[in-house]
């Protein structure tokens, strides 16, 4: 009798325990973002988890990677097979570079999951983005990450201080008719009016180089200092460039020589702040001068609607962005922000369901990106988002890193209809002939490291005009040759021709 009682009690206990367990049974999925500035996500995660419990069947946890720590955190999690990270940000420029990590088997191939659960996702993002994410990974051709729909085309622009331009007696149309090689007279005049301590030309030297010579970034090229140039057709970006689809030593071309010669002239004339030529101070100097409007012409790699953002509106001057080319789709931009599922994840299905929902469901995307209505933002009379500055300061994910930004509501700063226009702008962007090409540098990794070191020594200072090309460029080119530039170029060109042939 006692035995029976004990047995019944034990059974009862198991039942009770298992019913508790059932209630708690939702698996936890963890996502790691890049570039976040989030110190309090309690309210957001509460709302998100209530919203996704039925739709996804999981509970979400977030690792808010910041600009500075993401690379280490993401690569460690992936390389160590950490099951605690299910979804991770990846792209063409992060340390967990999409093409390489997909090839080495760290990302789940999503094609089957897309076929089964991804109808909404496929409908929500353009075909071209799916195509850009389709690569030859560990398990053959397929999609290894959900591609975020953001500013998916590259467009470099001149950032013009129109207020000062007018003060100097020029109009914006005058400026538009000028090229980089004609800026001298503008700068001279600006120096005259604003005094000797004023630097009219505010540039990101490396971006400027691409703008003037008309070259694009090659995905997989040495990250900090690009070595390869592929020249655009600046009249029609979808047509072949002047040199065809051939990769060149960026620093060995005539265009480059012409550019650095002119830049050195500008530098010597005192048009460029010397601290722009130093890697440690370049960005700070530029940001500071932009903040205060202390420049005449700058460079800006542009995203549609940037002129309506607080950082441009807050400069206290009239700013215009004058494009160098029409926007073009290249691999760098088309793989600019993606979300992959780690092969170490124990819940790939739930993870994919979450990513699909995040990229297609405006409610969830708005929650994740803008926070909770009534806490982080309110809607004004026109239904536009107005942020609560204090709450937003504790919860600012990197908007473009979260996913499909085209399903976000318009903010009061951007104005009604902004997202629609944004979508249309990028939907109409043309792809360059080599779009989709990513250089697999694994066979020349040693050369790339050596070349990167050499380039870091010269490139920025040359591009900023601080070094005299007459004396330093030959040394630089000789050092590059000694470090294996030709081997590097040959490997890259062999891959590009194979890619173009297959296309």
């Amino acid at each position: 009798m006692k035995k029976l009682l004990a047995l019944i009690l034990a059974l009862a206990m198991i039942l009770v325990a298992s019913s508790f367990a059932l209630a708690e049974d939702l698996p936890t999925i963890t996502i790691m973002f890049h570039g976040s500035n989030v110190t309090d996500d309690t309210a957001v995660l509460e709302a998100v988890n209530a919203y996704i419990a039925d739709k996804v069947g999981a509970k979400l946890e977030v690792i808010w990677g910041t600009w500075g720590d993401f690379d280490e955190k993401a690569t460690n999690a992936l390389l160590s097979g950490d099951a605690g990270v299910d979804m991770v940000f990846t792209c063409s420029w992060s340390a967990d570079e999409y093409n390489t990590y997909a090839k080495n088997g760290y990302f789940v191939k999503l094609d089957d999951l897309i076929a089964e659960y991804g109808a909404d996702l496929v409908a929500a993002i353009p075909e071209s983005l799916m195509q850009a994410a389709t690569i030859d990974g560990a398990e053959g051709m397929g999609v290894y990450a959900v591609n975020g729909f953001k500013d998916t085309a590259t467009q470099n622009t001149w950032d013009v201080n129109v207020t000062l331009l007018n003060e100097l007696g020029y109009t914006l149309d005058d400026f538009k008719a000028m090229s980089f090689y004609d800026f001298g007279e503008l700068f001279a005049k600006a120096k005259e009016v604003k005094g000797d301590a004023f630097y009219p030309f505010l540039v990101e030297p490396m971006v400027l180089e691409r703008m003037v010579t008309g070259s694009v970034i090659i995905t997989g090229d040495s990250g900090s200092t690009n070595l390869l140039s592929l020249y655009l057709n600046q009249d029609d970006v979808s047509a072949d460039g002047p040199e065809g689809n051939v990769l060149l030593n960026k620093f060995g071309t005539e265009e480059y020589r012409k550019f650095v010669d002119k830049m050195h002239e500008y530098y010597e004339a005192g048009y460029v702040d010397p601290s722009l030529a130093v890697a440690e101070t370049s960005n700070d100097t530029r940001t500071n001068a932009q903040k205060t409007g202390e420049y005449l012409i700058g460079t800006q790699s542009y995203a549609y609607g940037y002129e309506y953002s607080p950082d441009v509106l807050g400069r206290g001057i009239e700013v215009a962005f004058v494009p160098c080319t029409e926007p073009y789709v290249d691999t760098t931009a088309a793989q600019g922000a993606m979300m992959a599922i780690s092969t170490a994840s124990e819940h790939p299905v739930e993870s994919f369901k979450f990513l699909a929902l995040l990229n297609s469901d405006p409610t969830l995307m708005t929650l994740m990106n803008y926070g909770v209505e009534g806490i982080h933002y309110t809607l004004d009379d026109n239904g536009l988002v107005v942020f609560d500055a204090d709450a937003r300061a504790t919860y600012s994910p990197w908007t473009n890193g979260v996913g499909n930004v085209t399903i976000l509501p318009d903010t009061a700063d951007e104005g009604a209809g902004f997202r629609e226009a944004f979508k249309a702008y990028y939907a109409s962007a043309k792809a360059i002939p080599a779009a989709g090409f990513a250089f697999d540098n694994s066979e020349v990794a040693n050369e790339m490291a050596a070349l990167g070191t050499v380039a870091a020594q010269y490139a920025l200072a040359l591009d900023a005009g601080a070094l005299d090309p007459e004396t330093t460029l030959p040394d630089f080119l000789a050092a590059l040759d000694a470090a294996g530039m030709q081997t590097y170029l040959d490997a890259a060109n062999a891959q590009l021709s194979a890619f173009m042939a297959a296309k």
Partner: protein
Amino acid sequence: MQKAQRQHAGLNAFGPGAQALFHGVLGLFALLCILPFAFVIVISFTSEDSIRQIGYSFAPLSWSTQAYGYVFALGGALWRSYFNSFLITVVGTLLSVSICVLYSYPLYRKDFRYRGFFNFLSFFTMIFGGGLVPTFVVCKTLLGLSDNYAALIVPLLFSPFNVIVMRTFFQTTVPGELIEAATIDGAGEYRTLLQVVLPVVKPGIATIALLNALAFWNEWFLSLLYITKNMDVIPLQYLLMRMQRNADFLAKNAGMLGADAAKAARNLPSQSLKMALVVFIVVPIACAYPFFQRYVVAGLTVGSVKG
């Protein structure tokens, strides 16, 4: 007596000219050591406008306490991480010094049979490391060191270098006869270590403690690796490094990120704020120095064999 002392001192003394020269040189050297820190303090009180216009300078165009205003406005997060820095340093130093002494003492004892093996075990790790990812796997997956204080303390607990320093210190200051005498007087192993040996090696312990305290105080990389969700446990150093690394990253990738980088750069703290945080970080450890110094200096002058 006084006269004799003076004469004695006089024998080894330099002339007034040489004295002045040495004082001058050493004074200059001391000044050079203090100067960078003084510069940091000056910058932390410099107004942003001045930094923007003339860069860092000992004579800024205008002064401002704005940076400290920002620091205090960080509020809870700041004090929490400041507290964490202290907690990690104190607990970490106590534990690591205990471990170091308890490991190196047997290595010094000639009658310990497995000396060679344990010596090798510790020395080996100085030459060969597991590498970042395997270490990460062991710490995070195997030992569960993630998002907790233990993750910031345990990986640094054992330092083979310190063990060698401490062992050598035992060897040079504690004569074998001392242990024998203690044993003959009936002291057990624990009593011998705690009451006989430890008082003799105080200077050595102080040196190790200082090295450990510095290591724990300056540590930020462990937070970067192991703290992913629970930001309540991060030390002040990581708070500062995070700002620095964010700025570095944006500077490096500005071309790639375009407008996003410009937007993000706007949220970055000012130069003077960073320097104000440096002041917060440096002051406590600078204050701790004189206390340790007493022992460290004593360690240099006190030998077991006195002439």
